[in-house]
Each structure stands twice: as C-alpha cells, then as structure tokens.
C-alpha cells in the first residue's frame, strides 16, 4: 500500500513537485509532492534561476517541520494524501519550521491519539466496554479508566450510553483505546454524558470550524437559549436545551451552518431572537 502510493507519487513528482510556500491556502491533491522551503533552492524546478543568490545559503541549518493530517513523509519528501487547502502555522520558536497540514472536507473519521470524541457504548464484556466512535473499528474502554473507579467500585455505564472520552491508543495496526480520565486521573468533563439531549452527525470540517477559538457561530448560539453542547472530533455533536423544541432548533442551525454564509446566518439568528 505504502509502496504503491510512493510509486504513484514518484511518477507525478516528475512534473508536479511544487514549493509548499507557493501553494499555501491553495488546493492540493493526493499524490502531489511538496517542497519545503529548505529544499526549494536546489531541487525546485527552475527555482535557482528565479531566486536571488543567497550569501548564507549553506550556513542555514535545516529546521524541523511538522506535517499534520493530510500530509505524509516518505523518506525526505513530503507527500499529500488528502485533497483540500494547504495550511501553515508559523513556528513558535527557533529551530522550528512550523506546521503544514491539509484542511480537508470529509465525513469519515479515523481515530487519532489525543482526540476527544463522543462514543456510544455498544457492548459490555467483562473488564472493557466496546465503544462505537464512528471509526473502522469500535474502540475499547476499560472500566478502570473512569474517575474514581476501582476494582470494587465500577462505574455505572450501560449499553447505549454516550461517552465523552479521549484516545490513548490509536494507530492503523491496533484497536483504538479510549479513556475518560486525563494523565492526573481526573475526569475533566469526560465520562458518561447526561440523560436526554440529541446526538447528530456533521462533517469533520464543521466540527473544527465550530471549535476554533474565534468562532462566531458558537457565540451567537450561546446567546439564544440556555444550552449544553458537546463536540466530538469524530463529527458528533450532542445538544441539550430546556425543551425538545429548542434542542431541535439548535441542532438544525448547527447542521445548516455547514453551507451558510455569515450574512445568511445572521438573518436566521435575528429572526430566532425575535420569536
């Protein structure tokens, strides 16, 4: 699989290797090869001619670059594995080349270590619960991975309960494993999500947009009704408001946010605020 991808990439690379800096915020396609700023000088097609000669080109040390989701390292090369916009985060300090990733639009969730997700308990077997998280395989959740749980004091988790938890093991070769405590053993909001409420699914891109720290949608939603909301990185959202009607309205708004412009959204919010 990896070899096949590499071969395809190689055939493409002949005429398609573009500098990562040149395609920032632009659409990239799977199989494309990107050149990091350090590699541009020598290998970039026609790069040397266009670029003014640098005096200290040799003295420059190579910086560590992180390639995020949608990108993959193949030896010394950087390959694209998802289609979407290429994004870049500026480095925080010295020997750090920043983070590159592809902002893609997808619905399929692949467990990633450290992600907070909403899962549904599907089975209880001895010491572990099986939790459906929307991935290719159900995740396992130990009964000891709850706050205050001991061998004698089991957590009260039933089949069908919603769990907000975090992945501690998630890779392509192993069964994903969840926990509902952090490294200090505290729940920090993780565990079984309360009764009632409504669970629905949106795209993974929308979840990230809603969770962005400068998200206007959430601020506006928060002004409407008293509500509680949980976002899972696996595309699941759980909402609960005082009445069923309000809960449904909120769910519909959040689902519709996917394809609404800011103006359309403001209209709807103002109409709701009046009623």
């Amino acid at each position, binding site marked *: 699989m990896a070899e096949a991808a590499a071969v395809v990439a190689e055939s493409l690379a002949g005429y398609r290797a573009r500098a990562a800096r040149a395609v920032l915020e632009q659409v990239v396609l799977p199989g494309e090869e990107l050149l990091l700023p350090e590699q541009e000088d020598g290998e970039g097609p026609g790069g040397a001619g266009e670029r003014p000669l640098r005096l200290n080109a040799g003295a420059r040390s190579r910086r560590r670059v992180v390639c995020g989701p949608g990108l993959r390292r193949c030896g010394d090369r950087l390959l694209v594995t998802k289609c979407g916009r290429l994004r870049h985060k500026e480095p925080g300090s010295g020997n750090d080349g920043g983070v590159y990733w592809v902002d893609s639009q997808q619905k399929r969730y692949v467990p990633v270590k450290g992600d907070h997700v909403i899962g549904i308990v599907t089975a209880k077997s001895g010491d572990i619960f099986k939790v459906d998280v929307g991935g290719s395989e159900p995740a396992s959740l130990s009964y000891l991975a709850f706050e205050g749980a001991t061998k004698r004091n089991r957590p009260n988790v039933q089949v069908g309960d919603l769990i907000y938890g975090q992945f501690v093991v998630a890779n392509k070769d192993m069964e994903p494993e969840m926990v509902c405590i952090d490294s200090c053993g505290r729940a920090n909001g993780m565990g079984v999500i309360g009764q009632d409420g409504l669970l629905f699914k949106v795209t993974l891109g929308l979840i990230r947009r809603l*969770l*962005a720290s400068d998200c206007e949608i959430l601020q506006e939603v928060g002004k409407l009704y008293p509500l509680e909301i949980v976002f899972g990185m696996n595309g699941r959202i759980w909402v609960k408001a005082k009445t069923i009607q309000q809960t449904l309205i909120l769910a519909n708004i959040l689902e519709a946010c996917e394809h609404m412009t800011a103006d359309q959204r403001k209209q709807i919010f103002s109409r709701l605020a009046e009623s």
Partner: protein
Amino acid sequence: MAAERKTKLSKNVLRMKFMQRGLDSETKKQLEEEEKKIISEEHWYLDLPELKEKESFIIEEQSFLLCEDLLYGRMSFRGFNPEVEKLMLQMNAKNKAEEVEEETVELDVSDEEMARRYETLVGTIGKKFAKKRDRANYEEDENGDLKPIKTKKMFLKPQD
C-alpha cells in the same frame, strides 16, 4: 595405553577452573578460541543490510490539535450546566494562560512575610532538635512563644 589416555582428557574437563593451572599456554589459547567461537555462534543476528536512515526533519503528526487552536469540546451557555461552564472557562483559559503565566511568576508569599513567619518558629523548631532532657527547659511564655530557660541543676539541701 595408560599414557595415551592421560593426555586425552575431555575438553569440558580441561575447561574447568582447577584444571587450567596445569595447562600449557598453547592448549590454553586453543580452548579460549573455541569458547569464543561457541559464544559467537550462539549470538544470532538478523542477516540484513545495514539501515541507512538519515535523520529526518519532517515529523508526522496526524492530530489537528497541534495545528489548530481548538477549544475544549464541552460547553454550556447561560447557566444551563454550571459545572460544565466552570470547567469550560478553566480548560479554555489554560491554553492562553500557560504562556502568560510563564512570564510573570508571582510570589504567593513575599520574602518579608516569610522572614517574619520563621522568626516565631525558631523556638518551636529549636525544641524539636533539643534532647529530651533539655526539652523541659523550653517554656511557653504568655505570648505562646517558646524560650529556652537556663536553670542550673544543683544539689538542694533538704530542710530539717
């Protein structure tokens, strides 16, 4: 017959520690070589060409957490669930505050206050390290402070 048999002690016997004193240097070397051979044969390794992986400057990371500054996933608005609301403030403030806190390390107790506090503790701690016999000499005065009182022990003449 007898002489022949004498020279043909088995190798295992010759390898024993008490047998090595009487051996000449040649047989000693031979034995050592054989022993080395055995060890190297037992030591197995993978018959692979040496991996020549250069240090990579690209790190793979499949999580969005590192890329985007995402908020904590549980939220509550307008007092629907006060517990979550408190938690939400705490979790979301953590990311921002971490950077700020590093710059201004505030002292909980100022140096002066600390000195004043320890001043009163001198007697108490002195008592702790004093021997049992001396402990009686520490007496509490009206302020509650402990002060060592020196009383010389001497023979008291009984009254008659």
